[in-house]
């Protein structure tokens, strides 16, 4: 049975009415889930939908329930996210775990390998990008659906929980010794950040490339919540301004705007403060986290028989970019840069 037929069988059962799937097409990018767009016809109505299905091998091990609940937490609450429709953790008719969400048409996402992806709209998009991040962090996590599965750490334990996790990933998946990231991990442990000023929903992968824009200066959707969790909101800010996502423009975070302005927008929108020392810690941490993701990707590339080129380039080129970023940060912290 083809995937389209499997989907039709599932949706017919879900909606209790005959469903027809048209235009099923896999979307490139993103190695943590297989992503497809399709139209479903039911009861004379056409619904534009997205299917996110677990792949056999993945860039990052994530919980699809958590991602689904993250969408539910913010849909209709002032953050542009697609409407979550259905979640099947056992895979049902599609054989592998998946969820379905509404499709937001007409949007474009930037590849991190491109230059000047936002053109004349960079400033306008940057203003929305950092204000939306602030809005996510302004939300009181208590009562949000994501708290069904995401545990809230103590404010002084956010940093160690995240660092322990990503160091564990590197320990498990490293195939060639990485002295630069190891030095960064030791430095992070020697000089931990101040406790989180608030425990909030952390998107976990909030960066240029993980949002859709209409090419006229409007962000239409914030995507890829698979690493969402509760923690220190500075974690997200540090990831969003990581040089890897700057589209080769050192002076513009996310390839969109000036760093100080971005931080100021985030502070205004979130009602929180970006303590420079704490943010510096989270910036270095995020480069370590990036290396954890890339090292895992390299492992998956090998284990999966070298078939997914996104895993290959992530474990190679992107890892080297982050090695440079970490080395530069360590040198700057020593006054060597």
């Amino acid at each position, binding site marked *: 049975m083809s995937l389209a037929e499997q989907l039709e069988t599932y949706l017919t059962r879900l909606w209790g009415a005959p469903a027809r799937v048209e235009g099923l097409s896999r979307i490139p990018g993103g190695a943590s889930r297989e992503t497809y767009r399709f139209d479903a016809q039911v009861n004379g109505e056409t619904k534009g939908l997205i299917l996110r299905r677990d792949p056999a091998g993945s860039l990052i091990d994530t919980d699809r329930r958590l991602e689904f609940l993250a969408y539910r937490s913010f849909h209709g609450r002032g953050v542009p996210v697609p409407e979550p429709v259905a979640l099947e953790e056992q895979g049902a008719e599609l054989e592998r775990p998946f969820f379905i969400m509404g499709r937001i048409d007409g949007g474009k996402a930037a590849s991190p390998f491109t*230059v000047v992806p936002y053109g004349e709209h960079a400033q306008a998009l940057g203003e929305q990008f950092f204000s939306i991040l602030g809005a996510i962090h302004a939300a009181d996590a208590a009562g949000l659906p994501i708290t069904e599965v995401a545990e809230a750490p103590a404010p002084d334990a956010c940093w160690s929980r995240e660092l322990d996790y990503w160091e564990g990933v590197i320990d498990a998946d490293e195939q060639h010794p990485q002295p630069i990231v190891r030095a960064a991990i030791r430095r992070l442990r020697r000089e931990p950040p101040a406790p989180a000023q608030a425990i909030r929903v952390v998107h976990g992968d909030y960066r240029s490339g993980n949002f859709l824009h209409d090419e006229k200066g409007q962000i239409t959707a914030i995507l890829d919540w698979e690493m969402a969790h509760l923690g220190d909101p500075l974690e997200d800010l540090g990831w969003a301004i990581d040089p890897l996502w700057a589209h080769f423009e050192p002076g513009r975070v996310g390839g969109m705007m000036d760093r100080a302005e971005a931080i100021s927008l985030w502070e205004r929108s979130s009602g929180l403060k970006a303590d420079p020392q704490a943010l510096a810690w989270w910036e270095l941490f995020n480069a370590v986290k990036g290396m954890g993701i890339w090292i895992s990707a390299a492992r998956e590339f090998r284990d999966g028989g*070298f078939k997914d080129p996104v895993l290959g380039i992530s474990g190679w080129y992107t*890892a080297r970019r982050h090695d440079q970023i970490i080395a530069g940060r360590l040198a700057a912290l020593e006054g060597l840069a």
Partner: protein
Amino acid sequence: MTPTVPELLMGNFLCMIEPLPPEAMGEFMAGRVGVCAMISLLAAQEAERGIEARLWENSAIRAVLSKSAIDYGERFREASKGHDSDFSLGTLDRANAALRRHLIALHEMAENKADTKLHQEIIALYVKMAEARRLDLPPMPGS
């Protein structure tokens, strides 16, 4: 560093010959070909510069290990011995892995001893190591 160039190019080959289901033949396949093209381009750089980068890095690590042996133990002098005579990437990587493990151990000892001079020397070496292994993408317009 992983994955290796032969693995990446083998992967490109497998990507191209593997039949995909109809729903993956349009936009997804086009994106996949684009990533394979980038890998081929970067693999050409690695073929051009990779051996030189590894020879340099191995030699630089040996130098740091050797001169630190007086303060940090003879094992680092032992580790620094030898030279690279087989210039294949695989053999150089195997030697590099052993040297990097000793460098990590030495750096940790320097930190524990608050040996700022050696610590900073190693950090400066990291900057050069990362730079030597740099891969460059040509500017690809995003819109």
